[in-house]
């Protein structure tokens, strides 16, 4: 409200100010015109006195300016420029201008003065001098000023009263409505209602508002009920899922375990057979035995991998600071020992440390690096590069090889369980390695992906969540 009062007050002041300035200007013009007229009249009547050098008559003529109380001096100069007559007679002659000036009146800071030539016919006989103080203007001004102030005071009072009335009738109810809305939003309490305001437009607004709140309340209630039901359903399902999961896990665990036992026998006895009866067996027999042992070993690996995969579901991550570079070196030492007969260029760039579960991350490196080694088996000069880069605040680790690569067409199969993109004859493997890597990475909240070109190598990337 104070702003409105201030604004309207300022507008009023400006308007009045404009009027005052206009009045001041016109006052000056009016006073000037007045003096000019008086000057013309007196000069017209003073011609004879001047022509006949009649000082007495000239003085009498000038004295008539008494009628205009603001005129403080008048004088007549002859054609030689000397002061011929003056009014008032008591004024010292040096207060009059020394020489008569050109026709016209001018304002000085404290007076208005000027000259009017005295003509009889076409002949100039002398010059009239008039000087008036600015009392006329200031008096008008004072009066005007007083009126302006009075108007302003009354207007202000009226404006104030009016705004108070309006405030009570309009602003206050609206503000209280806004207040209510705010309370509802802040406290999320939909039982709050705005106090009714009567039958007019504001009342209609308030009623509508309250209706809306009721609606919100009802809907809110329904929503929370629904939410509750949903929560219930979800927890029921989760329970069911957990149970199923657990069953599945114990199933795969016991399956692998149960599968292992006979396998161990096969493995064990095949080995014994190989050792004890190698000499008895012929070429064909030795070959057959080799095949049996080979397959047994493979099956063992498969079961191991399966177990590892199944176990992954159970384990919780134990996150700690991990020196990635050291870990990779360690893994490389182990894995490259078996490949000592090969020409391998191994490039290990600086890898930033990370915060993760050391055991499973090691498995990731093992799987990725052993893959790199496996699929570069047929490459003449193997190059394996392990590096990292930072992108958008995330660290991405990379294992790159120049091996056989894969067709991107089958990318969707890459990380699938038991999915292989090459035959057993080309490259042996169980098809679980990358699936394990993906599971581990995803458990860390990260991402794993790859790019490759057939016969040109593959690059595997992974990032870990924060």
């Amino acid at each position, binding site marked *: 409200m104070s702003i409105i009062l201030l604004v309207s007050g300022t507008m009023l002041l400006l308007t009045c100010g404009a009027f005052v300035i206009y009045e001041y200007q016109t006052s000056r013009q009016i006073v000037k015109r007045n003096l000019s007229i008086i000057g013309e009249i007196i000069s017209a009547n003073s*011609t*004879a006195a001047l*022509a*006949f050098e009649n000082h007495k*008559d000239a003085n009498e003529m000038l004295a008539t300016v008494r009628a205009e109380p603001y005129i403080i001096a008048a004088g007549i100069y002859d054609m030689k420029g000397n002061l011929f007559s003056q009014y008032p007679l008591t004024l010292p002659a040096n207060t009059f201008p020394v020489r008569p000036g050109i026709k016209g009146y001018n304002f000085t800071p404290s007076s208005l003065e000027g000259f009017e030539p005295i003509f009889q*016919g*076409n002949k100039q006989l002398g010059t009239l001098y008039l000087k008036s103080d600015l009392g006329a203007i200031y008096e008008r001004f004072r009066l005007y000023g007083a009126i302006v102030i009075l108007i302003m005071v009354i207007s202000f009072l009226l404006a104030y009263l009016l705004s108070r009335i309006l405030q009570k009738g309009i602003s206050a109810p609206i503000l209280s409505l806004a207040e209510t809305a705010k309370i509802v939003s802040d406290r999320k309490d939909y039982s709050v209602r705005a106090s009714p305001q009567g039958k007019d437009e504001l009342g209609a607004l308030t009623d509508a508002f309250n209706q809306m709140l009721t609606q919100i309340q009802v809907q809110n209630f329904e929503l929370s009920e629904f939410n509750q039901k949903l929560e219930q359903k979800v927890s029921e399902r989760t329970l069911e899922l957990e149970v199923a999961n657990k069953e599945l896990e114990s199933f795969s665990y016991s399956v692998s375990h149960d599968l292992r036992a006979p396998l161990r026998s096969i493995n064990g006895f095949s080995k014994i057979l190989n050792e004890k009866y190698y000499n008895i067996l012929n070429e064909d027999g030795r070959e057959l035995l080799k095949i049996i042992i080979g397959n047994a070993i493979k099956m063992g690996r498969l079961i191991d991998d399966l177990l590892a995969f199944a176990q992954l579901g159970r384990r919780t991550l134990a996150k700690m600071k991990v020196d990635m570079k050291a870990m990779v070196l360690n893994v490389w030492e182990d894995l490259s020992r078996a490949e000592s007969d090969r020409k391998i260029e191994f490039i290990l760039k600086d890898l930033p440390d990370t915060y993760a579960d050391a055991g499973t991350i090691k498995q990731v490196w093992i799987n990725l690096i052993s893959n790199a080694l496996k699929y570069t088996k047929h490459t003449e000069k193997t190059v394996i590069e392990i590096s990292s880069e930072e992108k958008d605040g995330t660290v991405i680790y990379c294992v790159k090889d120049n091996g056989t690569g894969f067709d991107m067409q089958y990318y969707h199969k890459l990380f699938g369980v038991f999915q292989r993109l090459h035959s057993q004859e080309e490259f042996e493997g169980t098809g679980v390695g990358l699936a394990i890597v993906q599971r581990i990475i995803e458990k860390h909240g990260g991402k794993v992906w790859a790019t490759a070109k057939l016969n040109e190598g593959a690059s595997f990337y992974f990032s870990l969540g924060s």
Partner: protein
Amino acid sequence: MQVLKTKFHTGLLLFLLLCSWSMPAQTPPNREYQVKAAFLFNFAQFVEWPPAALPELSTPLVIGILGEDPFGSYLEAIISGEKINGHPLKVEHYRSLEEVKTCQILFLNITEPKKLGQVIASLKGRTILTVGDAPDFIQEGGMIRFFIGNNKIQFQINQEEAKSQRLIISSKLLRLAKTEGPGKK
């Protein structure tokens, strides 16, 4: 022989005296008549003659002097180049009444009252503003009389006389003068 010489000297002296008596004294105009000359010119600005007196714009307004000219060259100097209501101005000198032709203002340099009265009477009907400085100028029928009052040149105006001659004198001029009614005759 001695007696003849003295007689000659006296005769010469007498002759010279006579000359100075009869010939007008060519003294330069004094201040008084300079002012009066200016006034004569100014009268023309405050008096209205009937239209017949100045029929055309080119008709000159004549200021005449009857009798001795006390103004010297001053009156001519004052009016030179000036116009009144568009009429050019002219100064004429008259030695006798007969010489007076058309003029609008006539300064009568006559002091003898009887003669003055005769002259003025004969001027009636000719719409001439008569000005003079003889003491009983007004009583003899003149219109404006100069006199010295308070060490200043002042004038009396007989407005009735002027009116009777169809001359209109401006109130501005009348205001400055001491008007008088008909003469004391």
